[in-house]
């Protein structure tokens, strides 16, 4: 369809444009300020954009190999189709459109200037002009962001302080911060039905040892800007390193009813007090099937080979779960969260917002003032 339309445009002979072209002869650059170029470029840009929504962009190599196989993958990669919105040919079309836009604007400038100076009510034209300039402004804002901006990511455990982030480039380059950010706490608020309502990190920003922003909440949709960086709540998780499983252990044969409490960090192996045996904590899983929380443990008992087993919180209950000569209860996991924070620096954003505001203003001026010139106002009652 789009193909057919663009053919139509080419074959469409507009008399005015033809005449103008004849008059000017083969003036230099005339191709660039022709609207005949604008419309195919707009449609070409639209058509090209479709591709990137059908082929997943910037996915991992593994995902691509699964999707397309090796040969198709290298072909798509070679054509730049896996990061197509930044490929030379897509950016090239965008640049052509920009040149066309600038050329058309420059061409119209003298006529506009005359109209405004003679106060002939060229406000609709002024609106059109503003609209096009604002598009240029938005594009240049995007360019500024692409050149001088960056995106990074950092995970901070509760109670810990970060003084660097990792950039979102393939190398995950480490970038030091000129200040420090401490995660005081992280929490998830829930609705009564159990679905998450809010993710909140409590952060403290410090210059050296001096606290600058004390215990500020960072929530989704409510970023914090400090210096020239903006921080976004992006993800969270339970820290493997600092979380501790709390177990209750009873010796099956004899030994008192009161279980002994054993606290274990991940990967840690501890002796079970009063016995020859040792217990190790390998892994925590928040949910296994519909059985709920569980920990993977290893029991080292004398004169038998090590045995690993899953201990479910709900199943072990208060009665406990028998394993070898012992009964285990999974009492709790002392959770320590980490918060995942996206960090962004984009000096182009304000330019883009100015451009967007002017774009809307320009359009409103264009479309509200254009009508009376075209049609008889007397028809309206």
């Amino acid at each position, binding site marked *: 369809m789009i193909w057919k339309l663009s053919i139509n445009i080419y074959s469409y002979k507009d008399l005015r444009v033809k005449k103008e072209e004849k008059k000017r002869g083969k003036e230099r650059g005339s191709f660039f300020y022709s609207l005949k170029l604008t419309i195919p470029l707009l449609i070409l840009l*639209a058509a090209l954009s479709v591709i*990137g929504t059908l082929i997943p962009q910037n996915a991992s190599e593994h995902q691509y190999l699964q999707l397309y196989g090796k040969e198709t993958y290298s072909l798509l990669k070679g054509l730049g189709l896996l990061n197509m*919105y930044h490929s030379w040919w897509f950016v090239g079309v965008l640049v052509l459109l920009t040149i066309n836009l600038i050329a058309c604007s420059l061409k119209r400038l003298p006529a506009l200037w005359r109209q405004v100076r003679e106060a002939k009510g060229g406000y609709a034209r002024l609106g059109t002009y503003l609209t096009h300039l604002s598009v240029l402004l938005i594009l240049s804002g995007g360019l500024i962001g692409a050149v001088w901006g960056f995106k990074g990511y950092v995970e901070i455990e509760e109670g810990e302080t970060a003084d660097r982030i990792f950039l979102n480039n393939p190398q995950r380059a480490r970038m030091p911060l000129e200040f420090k950010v401490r995660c005081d706490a992280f929490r998830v608020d829930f609705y009564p039905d159990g*679905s998450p309502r809010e*993710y909140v990190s409590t952060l403290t920003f410090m210059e050296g040892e001096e606290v600058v922003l004390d215990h500020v909440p960072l929530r989704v*949709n409510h*970023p914090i800007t400090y210096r020239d960086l903006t921080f976004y709540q992006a993800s969270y998780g339970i820290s493997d390193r600092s979380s501790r499983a709390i177990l209750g252990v009873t010796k099956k044969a004899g030994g008192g009813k009161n279980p002994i409490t054993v606290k274990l960090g991940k990967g840690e192996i501890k002796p079970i007090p009063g016995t020859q045996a040792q217990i190790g904590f390998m892994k925590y899983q928040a949910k296994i099937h519909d059985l709920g929380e569980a920990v993977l443990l290893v029991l080292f008992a004398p004169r038998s080979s090590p045995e690993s087993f899953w201990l479910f919180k709900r199943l072990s209950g208060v009665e406990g779960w028998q394993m070898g000569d012992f009964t285990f209860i999974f009492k709790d996991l002392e959770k320590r969260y980490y918060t995942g924070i996206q960090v962004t620096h984009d000096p182009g954003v304000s330019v883009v917002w100015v451009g967007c505001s002017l774009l809307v203003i320009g359009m409103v001026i264009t479309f509200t003032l254009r*009508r009376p010139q075209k049609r008889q106002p007397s028809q309206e009652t």
Partner: protein
Amino acid sequence: MNILFFKITLALYLGGTIAYLIYLLSSQERAAWAGRLLLGLGFVSHCLTLVMRYIEAGHTPVVNLHESLSFFAWAIVGFFLLLRYRYRMDVLGAFISPLALLLVIWAATLPKEILPLPPSLRSYWLPIHVTFAFLGDAIFALAFCAGVTYLIQERLVKSKRIGPLSQRLPSLEVLDEINYRSLTIGFPLLTVGIITGAIWAEYAWGSYWSWDPKETWSLITWLLYAALLHQRLTVGWRGKKAAIMAIVGFGAVLFTFLGVNLLLEGLHSYDGWFR
């Protein structure tokens, strides 16, 4: 409560559509009057549906597909009633009311329970962004209906079958004017819809533009309408070509709204955001 009003709305739209179709085929003024009345009452009931659901949910009801389809249909009917007030054309109702009815029937088949808002959607930008986006879409739906009517009318005129049907349909000039007017209102609305979406994305995701399929398709739609606008205002395209372009443009609108959610993956399907 909102479900009850929703069902009443559905019944009234059904009645309105039938009445309008009768009017199209029989040209009885009474049928047009009935269609107008039923569609108007349906719109009032639809307003109540949305208000009730807003109160019951505690947030603007535009979060799942049922709510979005219903909101879209509401905007289309609302704009049609405005248009009909301005241009006194009942016959377009025979094209618009089936479209609205279809959307509402589809919405009726989908799960209707109110789910709590996930953290990523808890923002003041939700109602602002979605309202602008759907108002623009609804205007383009009108342009689409006017475009379809234009093609039918043109075929009738060209084949010299100027019978009762072609007399009932609006003249080609009026249809073309509706096309133009829709574009001058719909295009700024679409633009504001995209911009408010970008502002929200900057707050929520830290990036005003990330080439997510929804964003990209809204840009594709915007580019197509920009092309149509330039053709109209400068090269002087009108009539049939503009009507076809309005139909193609609405295809892009529908794909941006539905195709992306149902067929493609991206940030706008919110599950993947918090892992």
